[in-house]
């Protein structure tokens, strides 16, 4: 009898615990409810053509922006409207530098969890523009939900540098920051041109073979990704982009023996735990890059440089070319470039310590 009571008690406790977790999870997103602008005046509308060629009518003056995808969040911030983000992907709230520049992001709602939009949560924060990406748009149910909500949404999608620049322009137009978008794209192209001029001096047979580890040691770059495109721009031979890779979830993996066969001269990794693993694991010790101590960590600013959703890809291209080929671009000082980039686009002055942290790729992203 007594035992039964204990078990019943434990069962109830478990139920409450689960409920409690649910409520706690909600309360972090449910606080400071802002009443929507109820005095809805007739607003001027503009038409934006998104990456899918859809013509979307959006208010000329958007004030409440929902970015349901990290690139959108970064770009809105880059174009100077980070404080108007009222919904962001959860990952953004772990980018410490971004949060320092735009503390408002900490209070933004996170209506898209695990690939699904919580439409009521999204409507609660009453955005007047939603930015989603291609894979969300591929899900008819998600689109239907968004359509029913009546909130205008634009889709941005890219797998090349050119398409990414277009995406920046689309977002720029939608949020009234066309000039800033053009300024960014001009900067982007200037860096690309500078790197291209420098690396074109290196004959094709002397180009360096680089393995790029993405988050995990054997997770790597597929040919149809922007990372494949920007590694071309950096003048390196990315060993994985012509290989057969294993698709798991949304990511591509290769096998360890495959890496050994590639025997890359340089390894770049965007995650310090992967970097430590590669450097410290005897299985990797025979690889040229490890033997010659040429395993580098990609820098990390407001986002991981060179990551698919990153707006710091021009910096990644510059850094990679300079790191892989130390003999070129000798006049470029990375610290100055970093300082300049964040000052120009984020109007933010980095401390020397922060610049160093960015270049080391440490400490600016909070572990989950």
């Amino acid at each position: 009898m007594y035992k039964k009571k204990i078990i019943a008690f434990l069962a109830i406790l478990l139920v409450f615990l689960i409920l409690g977790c649910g409520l706690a999870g909600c309360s972090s997103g449910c606080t400071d409810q802002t009443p929507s602008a109820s005095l809805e005046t007739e607003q001027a509308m503009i038409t934006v053509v998104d990456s899918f060629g859809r013509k979307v009518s959006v208010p000329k003056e958007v004030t409440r922006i929902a970015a349901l995808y990290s690139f959108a969040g970064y770009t809105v911030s880059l174009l100077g409207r980070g404080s108007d983000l009222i919904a962001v992907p959860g990952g953004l709230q772990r980018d410490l530098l971004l949060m320092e520049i735009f503390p408002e992001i900490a209070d933004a709602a996170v209506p898209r969890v695990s690939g699904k939009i919580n439409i009521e949560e999204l409507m609660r924060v009453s955005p007047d523009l939603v930015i989603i990406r291609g894979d969300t748009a591929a899900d008819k149910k998600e689109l239907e939900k968004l359509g029913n909500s009546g909130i205008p949404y634009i889709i941005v999608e890219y797998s090349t540098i050119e398409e990414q620049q277009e995406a920046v322009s689309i977002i720029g137009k939608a949020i009234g920051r066309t000039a800033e978008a053009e300024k960014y794209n001009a900067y982007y192209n200037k860096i690309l041109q500078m790197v291209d001029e420098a690396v074109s001096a290196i004959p094709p047979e002397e180009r360096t073979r680089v393995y790029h580890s993405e988050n995990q040691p054997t997770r790597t770059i597929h040919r149809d990704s922007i990372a494949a495109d920007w590694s071309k721009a950096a003048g390196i031979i990315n060993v994985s982009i012509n290989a057969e890779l294993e698709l798991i979830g949304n990511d591509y993996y290769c096998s360890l023996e495959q890496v050994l066969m590639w025997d890359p001269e340089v390894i770049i990794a965007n995650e310090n735990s992967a970097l430590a693993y590669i450097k410290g694991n005897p299985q990797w010790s025979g690889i040229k890059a490890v033997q010659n101590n040429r395993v580098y960590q990609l820098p990390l600013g407001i986002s991981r440089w060179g990551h698919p959703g990153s707006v710091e890809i021009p910096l990644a291209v510059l850094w990679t070319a300079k790191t892989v080929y130390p003999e070129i671009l000798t006049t470029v000082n990375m610290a100055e470039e970093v300082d300049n980039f964040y000052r120009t686009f984020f109007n933010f002055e980095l401390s020397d310590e922060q610049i160093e942290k960015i270049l080391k790729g440490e400490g600016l992203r909070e572990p989950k």
Partner: protein
Amino acid sequence: MLTTMKKKIFLAILILTPLLTIFISLFIGRYPLTVGEVLTVLGYKFGFVEADLPLNNINVVWNIRLPRAILGAIVGGSLAVSGASYQGLFRNPLVSSDILGVCAGAGFGASLAIILFQSQPFFVYLFAFGFGIGAVVLSYLIGFHYHTTPTIMLVLGGVIVKAIFSSLISLLKYIADPYEHLPSIVFWLMGSLATARYEDLLLAALPMTIGMIGLIAMRWRLNILSMGDKEAQALGINIFFTKSLAIFFATLSTAAAVCVSGVIGWVGLVIPHIGRMLVGNNNIVLIPVSISIGASYLVLVDNLARTLTGSEIPLGILTSLIGAPFFIYLLKKTKGRGW
């Protein structure tokens, strides 16, 4: 009964088969090494050959293929032996190593560690192992709460615990960052030996070996437990103690196997059946045979997993793909009557 000579030959086959498959797997892989090169590395490592070998050759053979094959063998043996033991214990040839929820528990533990500790291997092991054992303990407490028909209550306990942990895994998948953690969780849940290193071996081999040796030692008791609680007690067995001990050993080996290699399905179900077909149902013979076949089977399947494509096919997928049709074949062959 077998004569002593026959027994010795039989034992030799049991031990040599997995060793042979491990040896063969040293020659299989994407990295192009000739038979001679592999043998040179082995000769060098065992001190027969003095040579200046490419470090990558040594690493491929000695640091990548060998630990992986050894780990595969131990994991395969562990899963098979715990499956065979549970089948005897629950008097049902259709139960598998995860009947008491060890895989679901370990899966939850691993997913939790992937999210909490950024996939740091040590925490993933620790959590997988801890929660795997925790799940079994929970099933066990539910099962032994009522004393009347413990076996069926244990099975029910397992069902409940599995359901709880499966939904908790789904919850974690839901919470997980889709671009950082979710792929790791999915990859882990599908099972792989890809990350096998000697450190992993050391960490996991001890509990697996203890579990296997324990089950080998008490294998005759498993025969008696399969007579059912009443008869087994009347035959002089302390049911509670013996069952607990068997579950303890089986859990130790399964939890450790799952925590280094992820969830590899079907081995614990199919291998004991191949054993039953070959040598009958007497656990005195079946238990060692299951270990031997399980070890060889997983090493072979892993060889397939790492050679079929440029990358790794998760093992769990292959074992199910191979195991399920094979099981249908077995059922058809015996017309469902058992062996």
